[in-house]
């Protein structure tokens, strides 16, 4: 096994010999972005592009893609997690299980179960799920709904340490995957619907000890606290529930900060720092290096946590190192990684609350939809609180300079009545909402990062809430809420292959190789707040139950 591992990462042998005892060092994590065998981080590499250079499966032969195996998770509540792959072993997580599975045979190697207290899910706003784990020095690291970070022995599944970082009674939960950057475990928290004070925490992978904590909402008297009305900051939300990305060269971690609490804006006048924006931090200390706010004083739960994808692209003819975010609010943001400067901001979906971006003030150009909403009037808002897209990550093709995004086409009738006080730990929204659902509730779009314009789009009656992934052979993989796993031609949007899985897909596809065979792996298992709440009527004929599927070409 050891010998094989050394072979598979021969490219980084130098860094590995110095640490022979431990796999997945900080250098391995950096290098895995280019590896076709190892998927060691959320996002399939620190840049979160979800792009693979593998080409064995291509546009011509994808029709011969066939199921190699399926692994059931004995669970009804949904499978959102991105699997990891190391040494041909797949690691998969959901709300109550972590499992290691042989990637070639689908046989379970170990499983570890989680029992959380029965009041836990009361503060889980958006699906009883987990989105993934992290690997570091032989440990498989994940969060739990009741706010523990767990480190398991990646070989055996035995618990090594367990650290509690927050209380469910105060409204916190963890659903996102940890990010390990420069040797520090970084985790976010959920709970902006329950009046939390959001934060990011850094933990030591060896011991589980918390090294730093950076609040996203300033304390009384701190800089930024003047952007909140009265004492509204104390329960101001600003959760960090979706995993960010890391630039090892700049040594910066990028993380999206969610909406302010409550959704009703009328009792928290001001910009509400540091909600609804992108934050860059030093992973060693948690120090904030820059913060770029996308939605000052958000009224619509246009939660800013969407995937932060890095690339080196041309903006107005100039080469730039950027971080990109297709935001809930409907804008596609392109920011300079070193400074947080807004380089390009364009709509990628139908939107009416802003008419554009003001690059002088670095603020949206609000329309009367927004000002009327603040005045308590009833308004029709696009996109709805579900957003132009949501947590499910987009992918980027450096070859084609396109982003592949599963978007929503859902609006809402919205009214914020008189504001009420938030109690930490209790659900706080205080707005009246009804979704507006057109015939096609979503699209898969191939979007130009600097214009927001779609090169092609595929309409879907029921919106997709799965991640996308793409390969150098020009294929985009994603899944439908009705269970179809699909492969799409990345240059024209033609669906080339389709496979009906046993449930609805809300997972994140990955591709990897072992012994010269390319595999594609995806979780199927309907769940998440969109399926449970908004699109319930559309998915009543989609059975529940979670399974991890792996595909390869026939005859391989």
């Amino acid at each position: 096994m050891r010998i094989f591992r050394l072979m598979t990462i021969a490219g980084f042998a130098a860094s590995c010999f110095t640490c022979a005892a431990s796999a997945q060092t900080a250098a391995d994590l950096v290098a895995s972005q280019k590896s076709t065998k190892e998927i060691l981080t959320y996002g399939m590499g620190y840049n979160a592009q979800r792009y693979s250079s593998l080409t064995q499966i291509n546009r011509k032969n994808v029709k011969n893609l066939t199921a190699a195996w399926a692994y059931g998770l004995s669970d009804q509540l949904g499978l959102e997690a991105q699997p990891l792959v190391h040494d041909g072993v797949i690691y998969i997580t959901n709300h109550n299980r972590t499992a290691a599975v042989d990637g070639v045979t689908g046989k379970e190697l170990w499983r570890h179960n989680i029992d959380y207290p029965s009041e836990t899910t009361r503060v889980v706003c958006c699906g009883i799920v987990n989105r993934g784990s992290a690997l570091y020095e032989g440990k498989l690291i994940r969060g739990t709904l009741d706010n523990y970070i767990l480190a398991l022995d990646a070989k055996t599944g035995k618990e090594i340490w367990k650290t509690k970082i927050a209380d469910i009674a105060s409204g916190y939960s963890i659903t996102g995957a940890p990010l390990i950057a420069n040797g520090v475990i970084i985790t976010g928290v959920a709970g902006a619907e329950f009046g939390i004070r959001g934060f990011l925490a850094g933990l030591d992978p060896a011991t589980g000890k918390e090294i730093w904590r950076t609040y996203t909402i300033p304390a009384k008297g701190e800089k930024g606290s003047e952007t909140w009305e009265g004492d509204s900051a104390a329960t101001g939300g600003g959760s960090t529930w979706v995993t960010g990305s890391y630039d090892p060269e700049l040594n910066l971690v990028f993380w999206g900060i969610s909406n302010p609490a409550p959704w009703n804006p009328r009792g928290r006048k001001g910009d509400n720092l540091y909600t609804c924006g992108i934050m860059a931090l030093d992973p060693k200390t948690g120090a904030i290096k820059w913060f770029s706010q996308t939605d000052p004083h958000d009224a619509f739960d246009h939660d800013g946590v969407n995937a932060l994808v890095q690339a080196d692209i041309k903006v107005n003819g100039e080469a730039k190192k950027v971080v990109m975010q297709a935001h809930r609010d409907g804008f596609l943001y392109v920011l300079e990684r070193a400074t947080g400067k807004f380089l390009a901001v364009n709509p990628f979906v139908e939107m009416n609350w802003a008419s554009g971006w003001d690059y002088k003030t670095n603020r949206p150009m609000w329309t009367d939809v927004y000002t009327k909403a603040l005045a308590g009037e009833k308004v029709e808002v696009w996109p709805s609180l579900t957003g132009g897209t949501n947590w499910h990550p987009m992918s980027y093709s450096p070859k084609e300079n396109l982003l592949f995004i599963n978007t929503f086409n859902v609006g809402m009738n919205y009214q914020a009545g008189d504001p009420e006080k938030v109690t930490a730990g209790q659900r706080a929204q205080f707005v009246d909402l009804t979704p507006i659902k057109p015939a096609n509730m979503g699209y898969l779009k191939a979007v130009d990062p600097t214009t927001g314009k779609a090169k092609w789009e595929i309409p879907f009656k029921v919106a997709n809430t799965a991640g996308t992934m793409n390969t150098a052979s020009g294929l985009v993989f994603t899944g439908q809420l009705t269970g179809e796993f699909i492969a799409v031609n990345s240059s024209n949007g033609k669906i080339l292959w389709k496979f009906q899985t046993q449930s609805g897909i809300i997972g994140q596809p990955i591709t990897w190789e072992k012994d010269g065979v390319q595999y594609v792996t995806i979780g199927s298992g309907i769940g998440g707040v969109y399926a449970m709440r908004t699109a319930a009527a559309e998915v009543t004929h989609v059975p529940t139950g979670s399974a991890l599927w792996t595909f390869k070409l026939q005859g391989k």
Partner: protein
Amino acid sequence: MKPTLVASLTLCALSSLIIGAAAQDAPVDLVKVGAKTYDTNCAPCHGDKLVSSGIAFDLKRLREDERPRFDNSVTNGKNAMPSWRGIIKEKDLDALWAYIRANAYP
């Protein structure tokens, strides 16, 4: 929400006698209070307006004689269904039950 809630909770206390017996005929206001509590606390998992995706239990399936089951599950939780002890009070249970029964399958 607070003034209405207080008002309707009073109403709910007054009318609690008739709820158990004939939920279908529950006073409109109690159903409304239940709808609001449902929308805030239950809809994220059980579906807008009680339309279930089938992921969490379809509450419209609860039969008239299942009030004890309802009370027990909401108070104590069941698997991933959270316990609402200390949050959903007796009076909220009455209102929720009225709302659910008013929309139950025949």
